[in-house]
């Protein structure tokens, strides 16, 4: 019958049941409430974040002509986890690659050192930027290769093969790009140079995302929460440049077979009308799959076609610099319009001689500019540095340097392109260090004629032309057409140089005289009044041929600097190229005569040897 001896054991069994449930609830608390990592693991399993790439903004010229647009391209992506029963050989043949290339690429993707953040579960880029024709055969048979997908992307399309340096290019983001801006992910493209880099944020738009559900076998099961978390891509902004693409094309043609630069600026706005750096290359060469090899080839070339000489090259400005000297001397009352200086084939002071060509002597300012008299400007500079009113050559030098800086030399102008150089304007400290404080105007006399320590970028020379054209102010030169983005207020403000307009008028008079019967005679035309100044810059090799000018004299539309390395006298290359560019811009085209001249000029070749420059 009933035995009650062991009745207490019911408590033990009840206790066991309570213990089990208690322990499990504690465990649940630990897994669900304390440990936050599981949510992420579950999301990593099931949620697939697919990026929707926005259309990059197009680039147009000042007349609304489309320069850069987009064309479709295709990336092949691979998700390692989903790859199974891969028929490697047929995939390789469809892609036109070899088995060993395939293996190398797969190994590269899997290598955590070369591909940090690699995961078997996420899509990895396998091949980039294939064209529609390259992808067509694979597209048909893609179902045979689970784990491989084709992703639609776009690459740049160039309507004109011109302006490569200014436009810049797109390349895959570097590790540093990703670290600097979390917007980017591996495999994204980013502006590497030029406008593409400087206006990257405006052009790129905003990536969108689509959150998809992926089941345990890697199949997509539709969108997560009915697309609640999806975000549409925002296309990039179109931008308009100040450049005149036809002027740019002409400039590139004229500079063929020569090394040098042409920069043209609209003086009233500071918009850069063209920016030619020669030698150049086709912008399309740095797009698509062959970007890397083309880049390497260009980088290895002795004449450095990738180097944007217009803003990165620093050169002695030669005689174009005399205009800046004239303005400084006038403002400082060292000279006036009627001051006469002697020049008998040069500036001679004791054993020091700066040569000049033959012309009448003594000479006043306007003819001195027109004939590009070295003697005149050496005397003026000598008198300024030695003038009593400053107290010492150091103090005089500082005043002189401040004028130069005020005119936009010695520092970066602030153009809206990456990589600008500042050039060089020496100051008193510089000479104190080099000459142990014992120096004077004679020691540094070459500054007077734009030689010696002074170097400018072609952009700074063109900006000098624009300042003179404006009779005393400039707007920081920029490639973007003014007034498009909030951040370009810098490109709207006038920077007034601390020199009176009346002195500018004198310099303009000299530059006009130079075209009428001086060194720039070849640029003279009855159609409009051209003002100009040649330069013949001495250097280790043959002289550089320089021209700086603007036109028309009243209400100027274009200021220009032409710099042809080792081209000899300014009148040989600088003046004719400048004249043709001015004609193209002001008349909207070239006369038949000029077309012939342009063709001839484009065929003229300067031999530079083969050594690296």
């Amino acid at each position, binding site marked *: *019958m*009933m*035995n009650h*001896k*062991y*009745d207490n*054991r*019911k408590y*033990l*069994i*009840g206790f*066991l*049941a*309570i213990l*089990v*449930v208690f*322990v*499990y*609830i504690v*465990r*649940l*608390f630990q*897994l*669900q*409430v304390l*440990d936050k*990592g*599981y*949510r992420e*693991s*579950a*999301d990593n*399993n*099931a*949620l697939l974040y697919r990026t929707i790439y926005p259309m990059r903004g197009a680039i147009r010229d000042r007349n609304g002509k489309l320069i850069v647009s987009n064309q479709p391209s295709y990336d092949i992506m691979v998700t390692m986890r989903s790859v199974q029963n891969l028929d490697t050989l047929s995939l390789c043949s469809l892609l036109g690659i070899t088995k060993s290339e395939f293996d190398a690429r797969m190994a590269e993707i899997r290598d955590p050192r070369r591909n940090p953040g690699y995961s078997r579960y996420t899509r990895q880029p396998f091949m980039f930027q294939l064209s529609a024709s390259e992808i067509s055969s694979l597209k048909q048979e893609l179902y045979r290769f689970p784990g491989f997908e084709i992703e639609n992307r776009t690459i740049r399309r160039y309507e004109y093969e011109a302006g490569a340096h200014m436009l810049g290019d797109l390349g895959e983001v570097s590790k540093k790009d990703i670290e600097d801006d979390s917007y980017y992910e591996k495999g994204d493209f980013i502006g590497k140079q030029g406008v593409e880099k400087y206006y990257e944020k405006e052009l790129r738009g905003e990536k969108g995302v689509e959150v998809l*559900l*992926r*089941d*345990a*076998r890697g199949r997509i*099961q539709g969108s997560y929460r009915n697309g609640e978390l999806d975000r549409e891509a925002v296309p990039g902004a179109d931008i308009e440049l100040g450049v005149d693409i036809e002027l740019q094309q002409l400039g590139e043609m004229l500079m063929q077979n020569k090394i040098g630069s042409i920069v043209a600026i609209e003086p009233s706005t500071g918009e850069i009308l063209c920016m030619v750096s020669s030698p150049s290359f086709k912008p399309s060469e740095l797009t698509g799959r062959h970007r890397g090899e083309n880049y390497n080839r260009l980088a290895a070339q002795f004449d450095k076609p990738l180097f944007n000489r217009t803003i990165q090259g620093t050169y002695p400005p030669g005689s174009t610099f005399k205009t800046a000297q004239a303005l400084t001397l006038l403002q400082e009352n060292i000279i006036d319009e009627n001051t006469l200086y002697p020049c008998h084939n040069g500036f001679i002071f004791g054993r020091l001689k700066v040569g000049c060509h033959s012309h009448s002597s003594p000479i006043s300012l306007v003819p001195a500019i027109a004939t590009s008299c070295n003697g005149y400007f050496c005397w003026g500079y000598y008198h300024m540095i030695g003038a009593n009113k400053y107290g010492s050559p150091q103090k005089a030098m500082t005043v002189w340097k401040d004028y130069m800086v005020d005119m936009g030399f010695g520092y970066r102008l602030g153009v809206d392109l990456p990589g600008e150089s500042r050039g060089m304007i020496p100051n008193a400290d510089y000479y104190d260090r080099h000459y142990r404080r014992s120096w004077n105007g004679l020691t540094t006399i070459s500054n007077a004629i734009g030689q010696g320590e002074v170097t400018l970028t072609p952009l700074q020379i063109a900006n000098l032309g624009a300042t003179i054209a404006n009779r005393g102010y400039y707007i920081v030169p920029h490639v973007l057409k003014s007034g498009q983005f909030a951040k370009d207020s810098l490109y709207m403000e006038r920077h007034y140089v601390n020199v009176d307009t009346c002195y500018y008028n004198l310099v303009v008079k000299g530059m006009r005289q130079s075209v009428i019967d001086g060194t720039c005679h070849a640029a003279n035309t009855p159609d409009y009044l051209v003002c100009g100044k040649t330069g013949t810059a001495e250097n280790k090799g043959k002289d550089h041929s320089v021209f700086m000018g603007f036109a028309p004299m009243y209400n100027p539309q274009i200021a220009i600097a032409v710099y042809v390395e080792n081209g000899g006298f300014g009148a040989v290359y600088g003046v004719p190229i400048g004249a043709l560019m001015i004609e193209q811009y002001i008349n909207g085209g070239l006369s038949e005569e000029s077309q012939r001249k342009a063709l001839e000029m484009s065929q003229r070749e300067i031999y530079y040897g083969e050594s690296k420059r």
Partner: protein
Amino acid sequence: MVNRNADIIRNIDWATVALVAAVMICGWFSVVGSSSESFSTDLLSFSTRPGKQLVWMLCAVVLSALVMSITQLFYNSYSYIIYVAFMILLLATIFLAHEHKGSRSWLDLGPVSLQPAEFAKFATALALAKFTDKYSFNSQNFSDIVKAAGLILIPMSLIVMQNETGSALVYLAFVFVLFREGLTGLVLYLGAMAVVIFIVALKYADVPVGQMPFNVGKFVVLLIISLLVPAQCWVMQHDRKTSLSLLYVTAAVTAVGMLFSGFIIPFDVTYLQVVLIVTISLWLVFHSFKAIARKYLVVAGISVLGVVYLFSVDYVFNDILQDHQRSRINVILGLEDDPKAAGYNVNQSMIAIGSGGFAGKGFMEGTQTRLKYVPEQDTDFIFCTVGEEQGFLGSSFVLLLYLALILRLLFLAERQPSVFGRVYGYSVLCILLFHVFVNVGMVLGITPVIGIPLPFFSYGGSSLWGFTILLSIFLRIDAERLASY
């Protein structure tokens, strides 16, 4: 008759019925939540799993009514016949069943497949209840215990032969039933010891002790065994002096051995421990005759058995267990970490539960379960669905429902006037507890992966009906408790 039936209905424990109904409804919603069909497709259609489960549930209600309409006298009188019939069915299943995932436990019956092992539980419970109910049964009688064990071991062996080790292990729950009836606590003690030794010996088998030439697992197990000797002497014989001196000797010998091995000559201290335990055991045998304290014999026996067991664990683990079983144990012990293979299920189920957070992702919003990252997400691993979609709140609620049900059954079992009713009631609650313990434990990564369903919750007709019959018989017995005596 009419009157009596009305009494029966009134006397049915409706609290239990309500708890089971609640569990079943939670279960059905979890089956819906884990199915990959969208809610819009017809859930009542028989072509979907939620639809089928609904049909199984309705059948279970009918089945329950049928079972409860039969008087307990029938079950009482025909216990052995029912038992024998089911043993024959289990045996036949081995030969008749088609192989399914390596096991031969499913019988095809037209539109449905049934697993006889699920139904053998109530037959075994009936037989055990009947056996312990007889007047001559004495839980202290060795031959009675052996006979009772036989009743349990027969279905266990047959189910193991069907290659359903998991389902066979459920029959271990009957040990607790016998314990309630007076089976010596030594059995539970030894069982618990066996599990602890097994886990410690395996988990720390490859961890060396400093620079010494033996491993932590063996050392700790032997230390436990040697320290338990004085403890057992104290508990069993209340001999304070002997217990304390044994404790001092053990501690001193082990400490000296460790110091010698650590600082002078490294040697395998476990040999010393074995020698110590055997020496003490021999002394206890000698002492038991001298002091006429026979319990010391038991202590000596346990200690020597423990040592033998320790040395056979390796053998059992490496040579008797099958690959997948070994692998599951390794994963639980944290010795094997391969989230792709053996650990995949557990890993994914823990991700599912953990990702549910406090309040859950919401009904039918579980990505882990609905996108099939968790395998068997509506059968053995259905608790994941609760964890993921209903979070800590929902899964705790389900566990508390089970606790309430089990404690209610404990209360009902204790109020039975007959041993038959009490033993049967304990069988029901112990089986339920065992299922919940193993099933939820496996999903939480606490117990090894043993494929047994969550009672009244997992998708599937066999287990639902098996539990329905098991419980319904008890409710009938309980309803008649006042009438029959």
